[in-house]
C-alpha cells in the first residue's frame, strides 16, 4: 500500500490542476494587487498604494459596508429561522416529518439566477403587478404597493429576504438532524424536574445544539461573504450602489474599468476577512463547548 508510482499516478493529476487553478492564482492575485492598471497596458508596480487607495475609495468602502450589513442580517436570520422551524417540526409535527423536510429543502437546490428572476417578477409593479403587489391589492392594502426593487431601502431588504428564503431550509434540515440525536431522556428528565419550555430550550437544547449552530453560522458566513450571484441577478447592485457587495466591487473595478491591480487588492481583502472571521468563529465555538 505504498507503491510510489501508483500514488503519483493517483494524486498528481488532481494535485496539479488544483494547485494550478486554485492556489497559484491566489498568490498571483496578491502580486497583481501591488500593481496598478492592467497587464500589457500601463501595468506598473506601485507597492501597497492600492490598499491605501481602497480606504479612500468611497465606492469600495460602501461595498464593504453593504456586504457586512448583509452578513450581519442574513447569517443570523438564516440560522435562527432554521432553528425555529426545526424545533417546530420536531415538537409539533408527528406525521409527515420527512415530507416537510423534503419540501422545505427545495429552494436550496435552485440556481440563484432563476430564484432572482422569480423574485423580480414577484416584486414587479409595472407594467403588471407581480405576486406581492397583487396580493397587497387583494388585501386592500393599496398604500403599500410600491416598486420594491426600485428603492434603495426596500431593494436591500428584499435581497436579504430572498437569500434567507433560499437557505433557511438547508439550515433547518441540518439542525433538525442534530435535534433528533438529542437524547429524549434528558428532555424527559428536565421536564419531570419542572423545567418550563423556555428553560428547556435554553438550558438543555441549546447547549446540545451549540456545535451544529456554530457549524451553520460558519457555513452561512462563507456564503454571505461571497455575496455576488443573487445580488447580481436581482438588482445588478442597484439602485445606485445599494446592493453592491465587495465581490461585485472587485468585479466592476477589474472587468469594467480594467483596473486589474486595484480589483486584485479588493479580492485579497475579501480573502483576508474570510480567513479572520472563520478563525474567530471556530475558536469561539470550541471554547464555549
Amino acid at each position, binding site marked *: *500500500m*505504498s*507503491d510510489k508510482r*501508483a*500514488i503519483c499516478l*493517483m*494524486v498528481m493529476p*488532481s*494535485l496539479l*490542476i*488544483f494547485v494550478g*487553478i*486554485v492556489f*497559484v492564482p*491566489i498568490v*498571483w*492575485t496578491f502580486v*497583481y494587487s501591488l500593481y496598478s492598471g492592467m497587464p500589457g497596458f500601463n501595468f506598473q508596480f506601485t507597492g501597497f498604494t492600492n490598499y491605501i487607495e481602497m480606504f479612500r475609495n468611497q465606492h469600495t468602502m460602501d461595498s464593504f459596508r453593504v456586504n457586512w450589513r448583509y452578513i450581519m442580517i442574513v447569517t443570523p436570520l438564516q440560522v435562527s429561522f432554521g432553528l425555529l*422551524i426545526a424545533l*417546530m*417540526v420536531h*415538537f*409539533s409535527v408527528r406525521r409527515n416529518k420527512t415530507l*416537510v423536510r423534503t419540501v*422545505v*429543502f*427545495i429552494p*436550496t*437546490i*435552485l*440556481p*440563484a*439566477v*432563476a430564484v432572482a*428572476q422569480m423574485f423580480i*417578477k414577484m416584486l414587479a409593479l409595472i407594467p*403588471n403587478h407581480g*405576486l406581492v403587489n*397583487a396580493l397587497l*391589492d387583494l388585501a386592500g392594502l393599496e398604500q403599500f404597493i410600491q416598486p420594491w426593487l426600485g428603492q434603495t431601502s426596500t431593494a436591500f431588504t428584499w435581497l436579504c429576504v430572498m437569500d434567507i*428564503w433560499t437557505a*433557511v431550509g*438547508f439550515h433547518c434540515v*441540518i439542525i433538525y438532524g442534530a435535534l433528533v440525536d438529542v437524547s429524549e431522556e434528558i*428532555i*424527559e428528565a428536565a421536564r419531570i424536574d419542572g423545567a418550563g419550555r423556555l428553560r428547556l430550550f435554553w438550558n438543555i437544547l441549546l447547549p446540545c445544539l451549540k456545535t451544529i449552530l456554530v*457549524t451553520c453560522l460558519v*457555513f452561512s458566513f462563507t456564503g454571505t*461573504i461571497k455575496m*455576488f*450571484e443573487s445580488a*447580481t*441577478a436581482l438588482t445588478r447592485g442597484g439602485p445606485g450602489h445599494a446592493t453592491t457587495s465587495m465581490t461585485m466591487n*472587485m468585479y466592476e473595478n*477589474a*472587468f469594467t474599468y480594467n483596473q486589474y491591480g486595484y480589483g*486584485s487588492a479588493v*479580492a*485579497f481583502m*475579501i480573502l483576508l476577512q474570510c480567513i479572520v472571521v472563520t478563525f474567530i468563529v471556530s475558536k469561539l465555538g470550541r471554547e464555549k463547548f
Partner: protein
Amino acid sequence: MVKLKKNPLAIAGKILIVIFVLVQVYPIFWIFMSAFKTTEEFSLSASYALPQSIHWQNFIDAWTRGRMNIYFKNSAIVTVVSLVFIVLFSTTSAFALTKMRWKLRGKVMSLFLSGIMVPTAVVLIPLYTIYKGMGILNTYSSLVLTYIAFGLSLSIFLLRGYLTAMPDDMMEAAVIDGANIYQVFTYIVLPLLKTGIVTMLVIQFYFRWNDLMFSMTFISDNTMRTVQTGLLFFSDQYGNRNWGAIFACIAISVTPTLAIYVALNKLVIEGMTAGAVKG
C-alpha cells in the same frame, strides 16, 4: 417521542409550519403556472390567478428565440465533462490520501481541504488572465478546468468520510492474494464507494449547473453561454416585455435540478448537508 397533545402551542406551531411550507413552495408553483399564461393574461388578470389555458408557445419562444436550446446544450456538456473528471480525480486521490501510506499525505490532504474555504472571487482575475493567455476564453475548456479544480476539495472531503469508514481487511486480503493496487482500487474500493460517488455527483451537479460567476466571466460569446448566464442575458434583452417567455425560461432552467431532486431527494439532502455537518 415527546407528547404535546392538544396543546395550543403545538397547534400554532403546526399552522406556522403549513404557512412556512407554502412560502417555500408556492413561488415555484407560481413560476410554472405563469409560464403557461399569454401576454394578455398578465395585464388583464391578477398574477396569482391560474392560467386560462395551457399556452405552450412560451416554452417554444424560450427554447428557440431565447436560445435556451443552445444554453442547455452548453451547460449539459460543461457539467457532464467536468463531473466525469471530478469523479476520476477525486476517487483516485481520496483513495491514495486515505488508504495508502506515504510521507506527504497529511500535508497534501490539508492542502485539498483548505480549498473549501477559498472564496472564488479571489482567483477570478488571475484565472481570467491565464485563460486569456492560453486563448481558451469563450471555450468549454475554461469552464471545465475551473469546475474540476473547484470541485475537488469538497469531493475529496466527502469521499474521505466514506473511505475512512471502510474496513481495511478486505483490501489487505486482496493484496495478500496477489492483487495489485489498481485491481484493489477498481474491484474492491470503487464498488464499495458507490453511494459516496453518487452523493458527490449530485452535489457537484448542483454547484456546476448553478454556477454564474465563472461562466459570466469567461464566456462572452452568446453561442457559448450556459443556462444561468443565458437566463440573465435573456432577461436583460427581453426584460419584462415578454413575461411568459421569461417564466418559461426560468421553468426550463430549474427543471433539471428539480427532477434530480425529486428522484434522489434523500441523497441530495444527505450530500448537501454532509459538507456542513462533518466540517
